């Protein structure tokens, strides 16, 4: 190979590599500048989040948590009823990250998830056994309970080989959908 041929080869690979890097960078910048808005779904509409199929049903606020036992000092709970169907091959806990209040409320602890059918804290949810559950947030006493609630539904994707070990697993991704609910107030529940 002559020197000229070598130089030409180096030049071509250099230009090609630079072009590829520039294109990838431009795409990343474009994506960051134009975030894909999450789709707004109606209550009761199932959402495929990758690992789960989630259907958010309704929201209410009240002093009684799903266990039916009121705490000694009065508290306000904001409760969201939803269905979840595990699509993976293994039992998994319904992650508290699955549903997130948007915009975030400062100092709000993670919700506790209960089973609707017997009011117990939900453990792992197995594939093939969809469950109806209630996520209960203990609302900060300083804030009035909300009239409407906007929730972001998080997603997870499956990687057959992850980038670190080449192991298979589920990885968190951006929210895929948002749902807006009106919160039926405590008074309505008391009247029942």
């Amino acid at each position: 190979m002559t020197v000229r041929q070598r130089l030409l080869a180096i030049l071509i690979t250099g230009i090609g590599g630079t072009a590829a890097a520039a294109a990838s960078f431009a795409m990343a910048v474009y994506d960051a500048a134009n975030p894909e808005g999450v789709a707004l779904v109606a209550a009761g509409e199932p959402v495929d989040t990758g690992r789960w199929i989630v259907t958010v049903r309704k929201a209410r606020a009240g002093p009684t948590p799903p266990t039916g036992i009121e705490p000694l000092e009065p508290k306000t709970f904001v409760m969201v009823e939803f269905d979840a169907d595990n699509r993976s091959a293994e039992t998994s806990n319904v992650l508290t990250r699955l549903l997130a209040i948007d915009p975030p409320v400062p100092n709000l602890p993670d919700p506790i998830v209960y089973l609707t059918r017997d009011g117990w804290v939900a453990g792992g949810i197995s594939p093939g056994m969809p469950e109806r559950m209630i996520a209960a947030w203990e609302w900060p006493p300083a804030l009035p309970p909300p009239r409407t609630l906007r929730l972001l539904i998080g997603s997870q994707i499956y990687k057959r080989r992850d980038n670190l070990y080449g192991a298979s697993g589920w990885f968190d991704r951006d929210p895929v959908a948002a749902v807006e609910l009106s919160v039926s107030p405590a008074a309505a529940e008391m009247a029942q």
Partner: protein
Amino acid sequence: MIGAIKGLAGVLLAAAMLYGMQRTTPLYSDIISPVPVAGRQGERVDTSAFAIGVADVHLAREVMASSFGRTRTYTTSGVWVIIEAAAAAKQESLSLTSAKWLGPNGVRHALSQRFSAMSGMLGSERLEPGIPRPMLMAFEVPESQLSGATLLIARSALTPLAEEAWIEMTDVRAQDIRPAVTLGRGNRSQPWTLEAE
């Protein structure tokens, strides 16, 4: 001309080989997965660290469990599988903490955490060498995943290359589902009582 064809063929061959190697490399999770030790329901299964035998399997729609004088009802959207077994450590004191119900469709159902406070439940007691102890397990499983399942038991779910007992559940049939099973507190040597309705 011939040289160019040879070069092209060489590149194609290399690409095919790389693709084949990429597709057939075992997953990291497979490489470090536990080593199965096969066994059957009703027989003693020996791994190097522990021995276990499944004695009875009860299927029920509901489980009533009494603790501290109160009886609570635990429902399920599938079927409760309550397993009575016995286990012993062989060389060293150890705890068994991982049990999974591997259904015929390949889904792994984790041990139900709903009455993990029940005495005798897997993981509640350390096993000592030479002292066999009764052990209770509970699963919530869809009805279609009852027969043809395998029970997987290991010291922990995460230890790479540790042994795991794979117990073939040969005698589990959907027609044996009872309406309810009651679990109660037992004594020191038999930590629970079980009544089927």
